[in-house]
């Protein structure tokens, strides 16, 4: 009832110790389409579902390359992501120019974390309305970090943000022990399966709406879009949403097995159908 009286600016606490503006910023992320990230011992992968405003329009870019060893996937206010990604590029360039070294992932995310936190404690400024999954590779191996408008930055084995991301998170939780030893191909397929679980009813992963970013020891950060993702989607096989439908006959019903890791995903995949998340 009194929730709205303490939300006028970013620097006012509620009596229960909450910063409503920051929480509202987190809501903005939930409105954006999903992005999923995961790491193995050798690679870090991000996959994202692109949205287009209208049928004839272009699809919003969801994955941005920051440096040869570093890229991000976003969910939420894309212009805020652009500002943050430009800042990250400056930090990355600065590290190469001053120290002749690729910026360590933990340092660049600390930099944007601090930057975001400032906006939660300054009068007249608003928190950034975007969540980022930062995938990169540095001297200590591959990393995946999740960045939030509060300035919180945490490292993950697998993460998902955006609309219906809980379904993806559930898939990741069920399968994450297969990630460390997974080949690059298997890792990407896990990511795509997790992303597929965020699809709304009757939607599909298509070449136009799916984006993949990959980075690893001998792999510079590479972005796959449009025709370049067709190969991956073919390997995935089943690209359609499983929401609101009974599983087809050839699938084992209500199985709780982990999805098998094979090169050609079998039609009898055992991803359990998740309860539908309400669209905001």
């Amino acid at each position: 009832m009194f929730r709205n009286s303490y939300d006028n600016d970013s620097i006012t606490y509620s009596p229960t110790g909450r910063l409503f503006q920051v929480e509202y910023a987190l809501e903005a992320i939930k409105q954006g389409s999903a992005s999923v990230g995961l790491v193995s011992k050798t690679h870090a992968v991000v996959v994202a579902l692109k949205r287009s405003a209208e049928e004839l329009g272009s699809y919003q870019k969801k994955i941005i390359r920051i440096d040869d060893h570093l890229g991000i996937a976003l969910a939420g206010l894309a212009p805020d992501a652009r500002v943050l990604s430009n800042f990250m590029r400056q930090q990355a360039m600065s590290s190469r120019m001053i120290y002749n070294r690729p910026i360590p992932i933990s340092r660049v995310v600390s930099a944007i974390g601090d930057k975001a936190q400032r906006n939660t404690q300054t009068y007249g400024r608003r928190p950034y309305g975007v969540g980022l999954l930062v995938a990169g590779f540095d001297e200590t191996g591959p990393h995946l970090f999740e960045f939030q408008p509060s300035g919180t930055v945490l490292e993950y084995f697998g993460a998902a943000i955006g609309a219906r991301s809980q379904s993806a998170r559930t898939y990741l939780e069920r399968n994450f022990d297969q990630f460390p030893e997974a080949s690059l191909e298997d890792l990407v397929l896990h990511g795509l399966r997790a992303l597929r679980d965020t699809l709304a009813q009757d939607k599909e992963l298509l070449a136009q709406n799916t984006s993949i970013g990959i980075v690893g020891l001998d792999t510079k950060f590479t972005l796959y879009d449009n025709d370049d993702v067709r190969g991956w989607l073919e390997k995935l096989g089943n690209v359609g949403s499983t929401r609101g439908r009974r599983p087809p006959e050839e699938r084992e019903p209500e199985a709780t097995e982990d999805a098998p890791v094979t090169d050609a995903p079998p039609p009898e995949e055992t991803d359990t159908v998740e309860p539908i998340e309400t669209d905001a």
Partner: protein
Amino acid sequence: MDHMPENWGRPRSEIYGVYNSAIHNAGPATHTQQPSITGTSVIALKYNKGVMLAADNLASYGSLARFTDQERLIKVGKETVVGISGDVSDMQYIELLLERLIIEDNYEQDGHNLRAPHIYEYLSRVMYNRRSKVDPLWNAILVAGKKDDGSPFLAYVDLLGVTYSSPSIATGFGAYLAVPLLRKIASDDGDEKKITEEQARAAIDECMKVLFYRDARSLDKYSVATVTTDGEVTIEQNVRCKDMSWRFAEHIHGYGTQKM
């Protein structure tokens, strides 16, 4: 002829009034210094297991051998040694910069630390930036450590921002006297693989002896630093030139033609 550029093309004072003296007398900003207290050569060469550097312990005040306890080889971080010649107050400033750099680098405790190539790049940027402001740090610096691929790293940067890398490098007089001697064993990239630590040390000691003979601003007491590719740094201090022969000086008078 009026040699002051700020007066050229200016309207005559008698007709248009005297120019504002604050503008008139302001010349260009100039900060180029002269070094006051200085250190002489730093010499270094790569060998099969790392890099060895040496620098004497003298800080000269012009021709006065003012301080004989000046350490000019600095350990930076865990695995890097920086040797500095030239102005000593600028050297101390660089030491301060490096100390701050390492402190900040250690804030995060995240397993990432600056190594020799990074420290070298940083110093190169600082030196070139100062030269571009016409306010140089009057030094020549050698940075030694190991590269990302594990092989020895040795590079030079100076007050002009000039940079180069080689298996054997020396600053100051060492560039003329020591480098030819060092190059007898380490001249091309890859030669260092054939040099043992003993051979490297023998070459270094020989060069320091030659420098004491011929560099009139040198000292026979010096420090030797060794940075291995295993990441070990040792700095041996109070090394003295040995087995010198000054007998040639017995019968010399003056500098050339003087007979008495």
